[in-house]
């Protein structure tokens, strides 16, 4: 039972060892690069087909691509406001990346988002974007916001600001890891006949539903944080 149980991160290639810590490529790296390769190839295909696109769409491919871009644009505008529409070119790919990462559990790979390193890197991006765009849009008034409502609350405000990326990353990480653990336990515990067909129900909840929902929540919260830092 325990030897079948497998939901941890494995080191596939080891480069070198130092002080008992080994450095190399883990399943997270490899699956992340797989997702990146899929997205890059998709992007190259769209770029190649772009010259065949017409003013009035005549191919199904163009309709699907336009629908995708329209959805991302309207989602960004409705969450961040009309004047921040340019952020859609950042958050759209981020949405697709996290969604594909969460869905890798469907083909038996370990989701890269079930590793705190991936989700914390993503949430650090949001953290620095909050500071940068807040400073650029509001200048010293942004820094003064830390002294409100009372100046002595400054440490509390700073802790609250630092807690944002931590809670953001652990939310995505915890939900995806929970699904990964449940699926690992199911495959390790059940006899072979229960592994045919039945897991699809679990996969559709933990990978598809929870994966899509947590992607939406991560991107939406990031958008809300950044746009509220820019507002007066």
């Amino acid at each position, binding site marked *: 039972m325990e030897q079948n149980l497998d939901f941890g991160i494995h080191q596939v290639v080891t480069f070198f060892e130092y002080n008992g810590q080994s450095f190399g490529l883990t399943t997270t790296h490899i699956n992340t690069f797989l997702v990146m390769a899929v997205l890059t190839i998709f992007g190259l295909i769209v770029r190649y087909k772009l010259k065949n696109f017409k003013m009035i769409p005549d191919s199904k491919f163009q309709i699907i691509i336009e629908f995708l871009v329209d959805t991302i644009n309207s989602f960004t505008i409705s969450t961040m406001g009309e004047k921040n529409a340019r952020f859609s070119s950042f958050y759209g790919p981020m949405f697709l990346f996290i969604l594909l990462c969460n869905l890798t559990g469907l083909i038996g790979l370990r989701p890269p988002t079930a590793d705190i390193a991936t989700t914390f890197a993503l949430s650090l991006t949001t953290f620095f974007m909050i500071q940068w765009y807040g400073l650029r849009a509001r200048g010293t008034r942004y820094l003064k916001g830390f002294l409100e409502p009372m100046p002595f609350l400054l440490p509390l405000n700073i802790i609250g600001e630092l807690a944002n990326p931590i809670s953001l990353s652990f939310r995505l990480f915890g939900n995806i890891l929970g699904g990964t653990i449940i699926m690992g336990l199911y495959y390790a515990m059940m006899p072979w006949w229960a592994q045919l067909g039945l897991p699809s129900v679990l996969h559709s909840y933990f990978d598809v539903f929870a994966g899509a929902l947590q992607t939406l929540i991560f991107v939406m919260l990031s958008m*809300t944080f950044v746009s509220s830092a820019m507002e007066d």
Partner: protein
Amino acid sequence: MTGYADFLFGWMANVDPVALVLAFSAIGAGLAMIAGIGPGIGQGFAAGKAAEAMGKNPKDGGKPATLVMLLGAAVAETSGIFSLVIAIIMLFANPLINKGGIAIVLAASAIGAGFAMIAGIGPGIGQGYAAGKAAEAVGKRPKLQSAIVRTMLLGQAVAQTTGIYALIIALLLLFVNLFA
């Protein structure tokens, strides 16, 4: 009083370490499942609000309200699922058994992991309340469904935070050698 305590701890120090860890894991698994109170109350509230919306506006508002209730209740279930994960790990794939260290500390880690998961009561009730209110609002104004659902999901995600923290601590207690 101290005589009993000395007797208890003396007994715990002498008993087979694996048996001690297994016994405390059993208690921990039971404790973790107490978190089910939260999703139960919350989803019940959401179901009640959806039924109310169905009764008030059966033609236009009933179906969207049911849909929103089901979506919100599925999110409210998250803390129950986290508790189930911790309980199943402790029952079937206990990582504490093969871990070296002082048996009493490992046993206390098992109980502590179970205790931490009780925090799931809060997110469960809160998310269910949000789902109920969203179902009520959609029942009144079905046209605003997407905006209401989005606000509900955003709030529920923030309400989940403490439950996530509890899960992290429980997993740390189970899988990482903290005190060795």
